[in-house]
């Protein structure tokens, strides 16, 4: 059994939040679970474009809630976690961090020296230690990496993986979303194997893909959940939604919650005449 994925929640007190994932291994695992999310961070290798982005992965609150409910993940929140973590750093912790940093440098030094020697050997030069100048150059060329994931928050994060607490966090998250029933709709679609992504740019709540969006076109533009009994269909919207679908080969889908939380879906498309 894989470990649960920690999801960081950026939130202000009394509001919903933004679920983010920073670990590439976790992102991989979520994808296997049918949750693609949206990569939103700048890729250090290509900082001048928006087509390919990197960590963090931003999730919809419905995705986060589903992952927690299914036991695949847990949410981590709390505005001052980092401040506390830094404040609680003891002399030991600092020594540990220092040691780690030094270890990384030492590895790099060893590697670079080795490379240097090999290079000289190829050129047929045998030379002793290059003295101060060389070592100054070496020190200046050591790489300081800014990591994706936090080490400071590691211990704190694990403390959130408690069922009761998670339930509370998820409830809070969903209660501050626009439409609680959208979550039920998400769950129903996910259980039928669809990958989902935010759908506003297509005029829906979700866009549904029959498999991984990397490989497949989307099939459905899913509307925000309707009141099954009382909310009449907005026919003007249906007309434009159906029309839109014809152009982009997506069906326009409406759904509502029946009794016992079951969702009834209907798919709409322009009939092609009239």
């Amino acid at each position, binding site marked *: 059994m894989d470990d649960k994925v920690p999801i960081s929640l950026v939130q202000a007190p009394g509001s919903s939040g933004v679920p983010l994932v920073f670990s590439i291994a976790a992102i991989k695992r979520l994808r296997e679970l049918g949750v693609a999310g949206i990569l939103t961070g700048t890729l250090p290798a290509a900082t001048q474009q928006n087509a390919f982005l990197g960590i963090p992965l931003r999730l919809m609150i419905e995705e986060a809630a589903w992952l927690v409910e299914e036991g695949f993940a847990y949410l981590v929140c709390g505005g001052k976690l980092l401040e506390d973590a830094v404040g609680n750093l003891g002399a030991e912790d600092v020594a540990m961090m220092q040691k780690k940093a030094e270890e990384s440098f030492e590895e790099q030094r060893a590697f670079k020296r080795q490379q240097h020697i090999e290079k000289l050997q190829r050129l047929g030069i045998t030379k002793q230690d290059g003295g101060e100048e060389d070592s100054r150059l070496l020190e200046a060329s050591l790489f300081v990496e800014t990591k994706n994931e936090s080490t400071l928050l590691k211990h704190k994060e694990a403390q959130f993986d408690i069922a009761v607490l998670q339930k509370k966090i998820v409830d809070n998250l969903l209660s501050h979303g626009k439409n609680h029933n959208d979550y039920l709709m998400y769950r129903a679609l996910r259980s039928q194997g669809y990958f989902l992504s935010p759908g506003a740019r297509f005029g829906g709540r979700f866009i549904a893909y029959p498999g991984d969006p990397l490989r497949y076109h989307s099939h459905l533009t899913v509307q925000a959940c309707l009141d099954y009994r009382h909310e009449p269909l*907005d026919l*003007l919207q249906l007309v434009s939604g159906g029309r839109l679908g014809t152009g982009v080969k997506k069906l326009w889908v409406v759904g*509502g919650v029946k009794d016992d939380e079951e969702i*009834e879906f209907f*798919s709409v498309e*322009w*009939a092609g*005449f009239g």
Partner: protein
Amino acid sequence: MNNSEIISLVRNNLVHQQLWTDVDQHELVADQLYVFSGLPPNKLSNDDELLCKEWVIPVELSQYRPGLLTLEVLQSIFDKIKCKRLTLGITNDDGTVVYYFVYKGLHKPKQN
């Protein structure tokens, strides 16, 4: 649902503009909900094997009245008529009728 008012509008449109044949009217809920069955002049979708009987629900789109077609009503229609799809015949304030397919559940879009 005030469907009785738009029955003749949709019927005439089907028979004399869209040139459907064998158009019959059925009452689903007395004085409220009607449905037409009929045969279009050609297959309506390439995904269909053969030309088949289609079911058309006349509904009204109004610029200033709330609509009456809820999901529950749609479901009740599907319960009564066992069919692959319904077609909504939406009548507009300008006298035109536009037609939209409704499938029950999640359906695949036409492939091309």
